[in-house]
């Protein structure tokens, strides 16, 4: 019987697999504690399997990457060229930087051995003898916890030469980033690990599974994804696939922040919880006297949704009618959120109530992306800065209605024109906020501002302007 710390009990609608030990009473990150709980038994089981059989189980499980793109993990593993003779690397992406996302933090701080066990199994499956945990610089304590945990696992022969007498050797190293969001992009991460600026590589040809770290086959997986591998080995792929819904299997951790009564993390079966259940039942609804206004459902790059929205889905119902869905009935899974024009992304749900001005929200996000653009591709480097400048003007009351159209056109000129997905990540929030809150944004502008050029001399003349 697992008990949790006072005030940290999971919601009854949760299904705790990855977060089983988070906030657990009497739990600590040491290997002794982990072993008492049956830790590393799944590694033992995996070592008795064929590497290919583990990959098959992961495929059968239908595991989709939990970092943001939702790409099938097992399929990613099979992209290593079959005739490969180079060393294979595995990288754990612990750069958790997507605003709104805070799940990996709790895994690496509280349950590091779960990650290490998942990593060793994954290394065995893909044939990697060296693995790196690329951890964001802002988790200094976790970097130490992980290094200690690796040393403990090494002392017990779960990591190192000849793991559990299997003849398989694996080393895991912790590598700290340096506060750059772009390192969460897998090819940017690889460049960073090579000691360079984290400029993402173009795909093709640089698919990491073929040409990754040091131009060798490299598998980059998110922390949560690697933890799931351990549970898939224990449960078998078939059993794991019974969790969640079709094509959206297993559990995932939803991180809710912003304007709700009880923000926090909730591990649920994918697709088994709707937006209404999540925000009202699990998070306690809006703050007193407030109403929900808008939700970003999958990390700041995901397109914003209005809470009063309704959607017409693709296809027809059995009687030939349109398939309708209200915002509140959206199931929290990859395919449903894609069907309503947003994405499940990294699971970071940011909630805004009616006290928030969307121009302010937009400007906050634009400031983030302008700061984090790596600067490699012109549309993104310049565009993210222009978008910030325009939203700065909107917030300052110095924008004209035409600026909204300009902002929108800048966003659409970034989208799809960059090497990595940062272009979309920075432009989607702008596109969506304008599409859904155009009137509100225009209400923050003044037509007479159109006559003021954007330079310091002109700004000084602003005082002579009369409202039109």
């Amino acid at each position, binding site marked *: 019987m697992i008990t949790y710390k006072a005030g940290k009990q999971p919601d009854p609608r949760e299904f705790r697999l990855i977060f089983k030990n988070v906030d657990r009473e009497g739990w600590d990150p040491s290997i002794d504690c982990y072993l008492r709980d049956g830790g590393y038994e799944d590694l033992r089981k995996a070592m008795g399997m064929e590497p290919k059989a583990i990959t098959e189980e992961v495929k059968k499980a239908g595991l989709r990457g939990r970092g943001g793109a939702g790409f099938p993990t097992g399929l990613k593993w099979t992209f290593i060229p079959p005739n490969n003779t180079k060393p294979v690397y595995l990288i754990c992406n612990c750069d958790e930087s997507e605003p709104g996302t805070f799940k990996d933090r709790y895994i690496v701080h509280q349950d590091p051995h779960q990650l290490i066990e998942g990593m060793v199994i994954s290394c065995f499956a893909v044939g990697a003898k060296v693995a790196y945990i690329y951890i964001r610089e802002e988790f200094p304590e976790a970097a130490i916890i992980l290094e200690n945990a690796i040393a403990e696992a090494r002392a017990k022969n779960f990591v190192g030469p000849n793991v559990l007498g299997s003849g398989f050797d694996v080393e895991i190293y912790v590598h700290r980033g340096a506060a750059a969001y772009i390192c969460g992009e897998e090819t940017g991460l690889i460049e960073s690990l090579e*000691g360079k600026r984290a400029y993402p590589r173009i795909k093709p040809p640089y698919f990491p599974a073929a040409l990754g770290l040091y131009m060798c086959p490299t598998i980059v997986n998110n922390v949560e994804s690697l933890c799931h591998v351990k549970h898939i080995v224990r449960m078998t792929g078939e059993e794991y696939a019974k969790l969640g819904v079709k094509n959206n299997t297993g559990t995932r951790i939803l991180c809710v922040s912003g304007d709700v009564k009880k923000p926090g*993390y909730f591990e649920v079966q994918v697709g088994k919880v709707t937006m209404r259940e999540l925000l009202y039942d699990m998070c306690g609804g809006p703050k007193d006297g407030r109403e929900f206004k808008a939700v970003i459902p999958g990390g700041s790059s995901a397109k914003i949704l209005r809470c009063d929205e309704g959607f017409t889905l693709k296809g027809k119902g059995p009687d030939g009618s349109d398939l309708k869905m209200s915002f509140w009935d959206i199931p929290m899974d990859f395919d449903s959120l894609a069907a309503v024009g947003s994405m499940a992304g990294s699971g970071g749900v940011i909630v805004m109530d009616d006290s928030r001005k969307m121009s302010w929200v937009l400007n906050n996000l634009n400031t983030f992306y302008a700061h984090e653009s790596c600067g490699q591709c012109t549309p993104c480097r310049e565009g993210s800065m222009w978008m910030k400048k325009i939203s700065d003007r909107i917030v300052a009351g110095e924008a004209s209605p035409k600026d909204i159209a300009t902002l929108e056109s800048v966003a659409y000129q970034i989208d799809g024109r960059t090497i990595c997905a940062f272009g979309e990540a920075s432009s989607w929030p702008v596109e969506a906020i304008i599409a859904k809150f155009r009137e509100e944004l225009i209400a923050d502008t003044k037509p007479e501002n159109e006559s003021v050029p954007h330079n310091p001399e002109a700004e000084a003349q602003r005082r002579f302007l009369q409202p039109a």
Partner: protein
Amino acid sequence: MSRSLLEENVASPETPGSKFFPPFVPTAALEAEADKRLAQFPGDQKRSAVLPLLHFVQHHHGYISAEAIEWVAARLEIAPIKVLEVVTFYPGFRQSAPGKTHIRVCRTLSCAMGGSHELMEKLCELTGIDRSHADSHHHPVTVSPCGNWSVEFAECLASCGTAPVCLVNDDFHEAVTPDKAQALLDAYQGNTTSH
């Protein structure tokens, strides 16, 4: 890149915090760190150790000076520009000294909604810091006149559910509403070790 060129390109102006950090000199500990990190990468990929070594330098000396860049470049057998380009790219590296206690307040959406801008204002008021010349790209860090404190806005620290949050040196603090700013500073007031 010659030494003088490097010095021209590395801006490490004196700050009130400089007095708390020893100038860069290669130490046995740094050598040991270099050996440890280089062992983690293939022999022909020494460049991979640049981030860990710069972290070590910044941790002990507060910032990364031209001398440090020169040393790291020589140790990794790469041109100094390859180290400098890393220092200038990553927001996690500084080229001048912060305060003895460095506070990074999360600026991004959920924390901003939770009051992180108000927290920053309060911290500046209590420490006498004037952030009016700060800009996120070139001058993110502002040091108090006494050198004991510095503040910086950080982008999402990944704890959005407990907003507003901040990192003080290497310690993480959550739910730091503006009314808790004084208590936070008090906890570091007698701080004798810098980061």
